[in-house]
């Protein structure tokens, strides 16, 4: 089994297009499970058109105050690092959207006035797109429990031969939560100054995950060669190049996988898939 995270420092580099295309190509040889961990904007389903089953809610614990037992001692508030609970002389206020669900306040409460209740923060849906199993998490708007949601998605991982994780863009906690435990991280980068800047951040994050890193240059030829130069300098393998082609963007904007109508795109994805699974027994 191999676990491949597809990530990028910058948004809009083609990460989901690459992840979904890889999943389809790999499913010709392996049992593939694609986990859409970009829970603030899950969109692999837009390209794969799976038959989704009924979505299930994902909840997270938040504190509730049973007022008669509370003497406003303030220990719950002192225990909260996120200021999600405030104690005033007459009332205790909870700000559920700031709560990280750690349960510290409930443990700190000496009077038993606090208990945990479950708050729904999003949902998980699952379905098949041909032979590819897709699991997708979507966080409700305004919620901050991104990492909690990503972990819930990752707990759905099956014993597939290849697991593809579509990570959220960036290099903060959500990206880390999606990459953690991956054997390989594919960083999709644009050949532009902006693309290089965000690639540098993504490389640092991926190194923390301890995975093997490969770079895919998307829209190759559209910018300059600074991403290529950087990869050569630090000996980061460029495992694929997808040529800049308007037809790819057109297919994407229609909700189609570009490989079906753009043969050179399909060949680029196949080459990347082979490199990623060279050591996986078919």
């Amino acid at each position, binding site marked *: 089994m191999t676990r491949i995270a597809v990530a990028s420092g910058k948004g809009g580099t083609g990460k989901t297009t690459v992840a979904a295309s890889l999943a389809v190509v790999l499913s010709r040889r392996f049992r593939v499970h694609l986990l859409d961990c970009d829970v603030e904007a899950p969109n692999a389903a837009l390209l794969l058109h799976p038959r989704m089953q009924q979505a299930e809610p994902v909840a997270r614990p938040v504190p509730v105050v049973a007022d008669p037992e509370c003497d406003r001692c303030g220990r719950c508030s002192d225990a909260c690092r*996120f*200021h999600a609970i*405030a104690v005033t002389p007459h009332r205790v*206020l909870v700000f559920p959207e700031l709560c990280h669900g750690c349960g510290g306040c409930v443990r700190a409460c000496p009077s038993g006035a606090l208990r945990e209740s479950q708050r729904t923060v999003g949902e998980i849906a699952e379905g098949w797109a041909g032979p590819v199993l897709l699991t997708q998490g979507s966080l409700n708007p305004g919620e901050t429990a991104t990492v909690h949601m990503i972990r819930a998605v990752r707990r759905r991982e099956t014993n597939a031969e290849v697991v593809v994780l579509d990570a959220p863009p960036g290099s903060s906690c959500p990206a880390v939560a999606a990459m953690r435990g991956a054997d390989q991280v594919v960083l999709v980068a644009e050949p532009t100054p902006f693309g290089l800047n965000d690639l540098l951040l993504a490389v640092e994050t991926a190194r923390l995950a301890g995975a093997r890193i490969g770079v895919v240059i998307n829209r190759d030829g559209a910018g300059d060669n600074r991403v290529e130069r950087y990869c050569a300098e630090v000996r980061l393998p460029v495992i694929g190049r997808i040529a800049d082609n308007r037809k790819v963007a057109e297919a994407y904007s229609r909700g189609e996988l570009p490989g079906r109508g753009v043969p050179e795109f399909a060949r680029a994805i196949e080459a990347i898939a082979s490199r990623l699974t060279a050591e996986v027994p078919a």
Partner: protein
Amino acid sequence: MKIVVSAAGAGSENEVDPRFGRAANFLVFDSARESWTLLENTQAPEAAHGAGIQAAETICRHGAEALITGRVGPKAFAVLSAGGVKVYRGDGRTAKEAVEAFRAGRLAEIKESDPAY
């Protein structure tokens, strides 16, 4: 009566700090004793989120009845309301001038929070 002023410095000659949660200091004027004391805003300025909540809580627990500041966000405002602290707009003056204006009834009470920022 205790009146708290968000201030840019540690003395009453300093300007009212228009930021509430991340104010440099809080100065407390006790009208019964006609005296000023310093209530440091120690942790809130460093907080990633919830600086206003924590600062509001500190002020409520201190037993203040009025707060003079610039802008207050919705969460901090909810805590101040729960704690019975009335909020007045006093930026653009020194802390001392703001308290004098408040006592003369010349400061406007803020009855709802500013948008989140």
